[in-house]
């Protein structure tokens, strides 16, 4: 791994995918928290 060819491309893909998926996950969780406060508990059937 230390002498990886095209290491920059590999790192960019892995880090970029992690950042995109992680950022999207955080966005969804935030939206869920915000909306959950506006909706009665009985409508949150997973709670």
């Amino acid at each position, binding site marked *: *791994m230390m002498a*990886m*060819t*095209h*290491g920059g*491309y*590999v790192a*960019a*893909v*892995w880090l*970029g*995918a992690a950042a*995109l*998926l992680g950022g*999207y*996950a955080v966005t*969804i*969780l935030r*939206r*869920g*928290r915000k*909306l*959950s*406060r*506006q*909706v*009665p*508990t*009985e*409508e*949150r059937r*997973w*709670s």
Partner: protein
Amino acid sequence: MTATTPAGTASGTSATPTSTTSGGGLAGGRPSPGGTPGPAHTGSAATRVLGLLALVAVGVLVLYGLVISPADREMADSVRIMYVHVPAATLLYVGCFITTVASGLWLWKRTPGWDALAESGAEVGLVFSIVTLFSGSLWGRPTWGTYWVWDARLTSTAVLTALLIGYLALRRLDLDPDARSTRAAVLGLLLVPNVIVVNRSVEWWRSIHQDSTLARLDPTIEGDMLVALMVGFLAMALVFTWLLVHRFRVAWLEQQADRVDLDAALLARRAEAADAEPAPGSAATAGFDPPAGSAPTVPTDAAGAGGPSTGADPTDEKGTPT
């Protein structure tokens, strides 16, 4: 299905159920001072277990994909990009498939849950399509010598991504919710046919893109590279499922919040109407101030329409609770 809100003004969709919520203090879609009980988020025990499994699988993927798996004889270390790219592309297809099936079921059943699932599949699918295009172009640079080429596979994938963006943009139009969901569902039906075009494009047209790696009994990779790819599928599938479940719950909450807002708006409108009903000697009759002894000169159609009556005897008005 016909909605029957108390005022009869709902848009007639099953996405806007009609009962007034009994959740404490939700007027205006805001929490009551005491707040609603229960956890205010989209998580549950199942999603926490799923999230934990996904994190473990991602850790194993990093270990296998970046450390254990050897470099390829031809692609060298850029083969490690495949452990992200191929699973992401597959889950893009899965997201499109979910959206198409859920769109069809929504058009058939008109159940709000299918509409929420269709939207969720499209949005999560779009995220994975971005990962697919991003990783593919970064793989193409060291392998093909270019980030992008208007090849059949790449172009059709870009078209599919544009279709997903259009689908999600359509869902954000300021339309009647029922009409908006119907139009989006019709567009959602086109996703799977497009996926078939993307998937078959390397066979239907001359393509620089390689053929399928696993879609035959003798896969072109083996050993630790095959294991790394399988772990990639597993990890990405767990992440996809976790995202889809949470996104579905967000879509569900959006539907419920819209309903709460609609109920609150109806209540406010009715309260305004009740306040506007003129009472004897109220402001509604003060503006005319007819001369003493003369009959009021009011257009007769105003009284017939149920508007503020300025008849000679305001106590004759109907419909005003006493």
